[in-house]
């Protein structure tokens, strides 16, 4: 149908003029609407409550409510976002253009503030949403840091859950030991009010411990190229796991609980932004590009003055650091860790996010982590079938896009935030 095709093309053309600022504003309006009118709309549509994850969970639980849930999503998200972004194209473009004249740091800060407000309002509907959001942000950190090794450097590392475990336990021991009256670590050492200030220290310590552990993988496996890293890193994962299982002072396989509630949404959001920012900086620098050179041809990299061994070790430790930080946050979001969390299944999930989203790509990691985490949550009502659908999706992606959905794309902040149309100008 040519008319339909033309309509779709026109719609795409007009929406492609919406700057990121416009999308963020639209999303903010949608979540604000949900915050104030969500419950009445949901009840009016015959839904028991506000659908937690875009209606998918309700649809799967009660297929009879499928049209109602779709209508809800359309009324609350689709319609307001579509209408406001479309109608305010020239306004948001002008605003984005004006923002762009400030130093880039200010522009970025405004966008991040909008994004955070949107997420905050969205997560404010229920505790469940807040938890899912925090875990998704942590998954973004994990995926991106693993992508540095498996994508940018082109080696295959399996030890990410191990690094995560090191970070999680290190940060937990630090905070539980200092701020909590605990049977194992004794009475409160510092006033709990200091918690939020010392929490970054705990996370960074966890990151450093993970980096230190990574050193034991990196030194033997980066002497030569080949499959050594995959094997050694897998061994490392099991060593860390059984080490923790046998350490009585962190309660072995029973797990460590009672972490103070320090990982609230702003904290997790801030660390995720920091992680994405520093990894993006790294992979876009000439030092980081050396990783790609090592992957594509190590001999040529050496002949062009690149210290290949140092490059690989630095990248590996850097990735391990962020995995450790993510582990620390994870432990404080759930406020309980046990060693069996950090096993093969966790590894498979992170690997799936990396390969689904796209190798060698910051965008891809974000897309992969968000889509697999949200899908994993939304498909929960399907129980066992969830583990058929997600792998099936992964297989399809591997067949049609072998390098992942959005491969080879770093985050270019300037082009992302710039207005999409000259202020005042036509199309």
């Amino acid at each position, binding site marked *: 149908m040519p008319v339909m095709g033309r309509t779709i093309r026109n719609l795409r053309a007009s929406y492609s003029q919406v700057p990121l600022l416009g999308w963020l504003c639209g999303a903010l309006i949608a979540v604000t609407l949900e915050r104030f009118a969500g419950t009445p709309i949901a009840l009016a549509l015959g839904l028991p409550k506000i659908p937690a994850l875009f209606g998918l969970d309700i649809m799967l639980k009660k297929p009879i409510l499928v049209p109602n849930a779709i209508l809800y999503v359309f009324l609350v998200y689709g319609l307001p976002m579509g209408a406001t972004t479309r109608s305010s194209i020239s306004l948001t473009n002008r605003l984005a253009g004006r923002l762009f004249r400030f130093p880039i740091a200010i522009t970025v800060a405004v966008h991040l503030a909008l994004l955070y407000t949107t997420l905050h309002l969205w997560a404010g509907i229920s505790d469940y949403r807040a938890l899912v959001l925090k875990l998704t942000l942590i998954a973004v950190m994990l995926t991106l840091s693993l992508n540095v090794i498996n994508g940018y450097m082109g080696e295959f590392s399996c030890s990410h859950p191990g690094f995560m475990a090191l970070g999680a336990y290190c940060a937990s021991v630090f905070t539980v030991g200092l701020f909590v009256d605990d049977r194992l670590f004794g009475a409160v050492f510092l006033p709990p009010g200091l918690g939020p200030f010392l929490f970054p220290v705990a996370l960074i310590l966890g990151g450093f411990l993970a980096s230190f552990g990574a050193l034991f993988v990196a030194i033997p496996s980066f002497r030569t190229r080949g499959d050594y890293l995959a094997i050694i890193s897998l061994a490392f994962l099991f060593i860390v796991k059984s080490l923790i299982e046998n350490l009585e002072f962190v309660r072995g396989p029973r797990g460590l609980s009672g972490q103070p509630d320090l990982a609230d949404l702003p904290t997790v959001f801030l660390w995720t932004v920091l992680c994405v920012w*520093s990894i993006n*900086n*790294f992979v876009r*620098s*000439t*030092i*980081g*590009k*050396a990783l*790609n*050179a090592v*992957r*594509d*041809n190590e*001999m*040529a*990299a*050496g*002949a*062009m*003055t*690149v*210290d*290949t061994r140092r490059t690989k070790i*630095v990248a590996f430790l*850097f990735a391990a650091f962020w995995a450790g930080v993510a582990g620390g946050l994870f432990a404080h979001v759930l406020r309980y860790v046990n060693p069996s969390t950090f096993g093969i299944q966790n590894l498979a999930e992170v690997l799936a996010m990396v390969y689904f989203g796209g190798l*060698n790509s910051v965008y891809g990691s974000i897309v992969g982590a968000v889509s697999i985490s949200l899908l994993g949550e939304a498909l929960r009502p399907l129980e066992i079938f969830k583990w058929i659908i997600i792998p099936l999706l992964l297989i399809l992606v591997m067949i049609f896009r072998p390098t992942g959905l959005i491969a*080879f794309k770093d985050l270019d902040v300037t082009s992302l935030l710039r207005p999409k149309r000259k202020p005042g100008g036509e199309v």
Partner: protein
Amino acid sequence: MPILRVHGMSHDFGGLRAVQDYRLEIETGQIRGLIGPNGAGKTTIFNLLTGIYTPTAGEILLDGRRINGLPAHRIASMGISRTFQNLLLWRHMTVLEHVKLAHYSKIRYGLFGAFFGTPGRNREEAEIEEKALRLLDRMGIRHLAEQVVLNLPYGAQRRVEMARALATEPRILLLDEPTAGMNPEELVQIMEIIRRVHGEFGLSILLIEHRMKVVMELCEIIQTLDFGAVIAEGTPEEIQNNPRVIDAYLGQERRG
């Protein structure tokens, strides 16, 4: 004093002696040729000089300093750069990124700058980019800067490799069959480029080449290699008339 001196260099692959008692002296600004039949050990010599292999015996002296045993990247940053016989480019990287990365050893901003994008880093990255673009301009491939090398025609890829080698700011450039697989037109261009970089950068060049026309026109002194050993050394005329070279490599021209 020669800039690069090699004497008594030998290399064994297991029981096979690939290079035997090789010696070489390159003066600043000289163009030397290295010819010989396939498997004579020419590329092995390049790999030994650039630190990819470590010689079994002998010495390599750069400005009188012993460099054998040093890792490849150290030798490269001391001023020996090279191209590869079968084009070892980085297939997912753009032309500009290739040339920028060859500045690796001169980067002054540390890891902190790389992670957090300090102003110093941004300034330095801009400097490197400008230098790289200027070099691409001189090599006539500036318009390809944003292309991924995989999509380029063969001749352009050769130029990228040459530009990358020059970006390390070498004093000695080792060219491993720079005209392999080129058509006559590209051949003329690449010879022009070699002459030009030799003149402009004041480089010493060591050239492996199978096309006699190229070697004879460019080189001042030619070494002929057979079974890992030098069998003749001299000016192009001397080499062309040397019976051992004719026997081992050039072959007898049939008359009549």
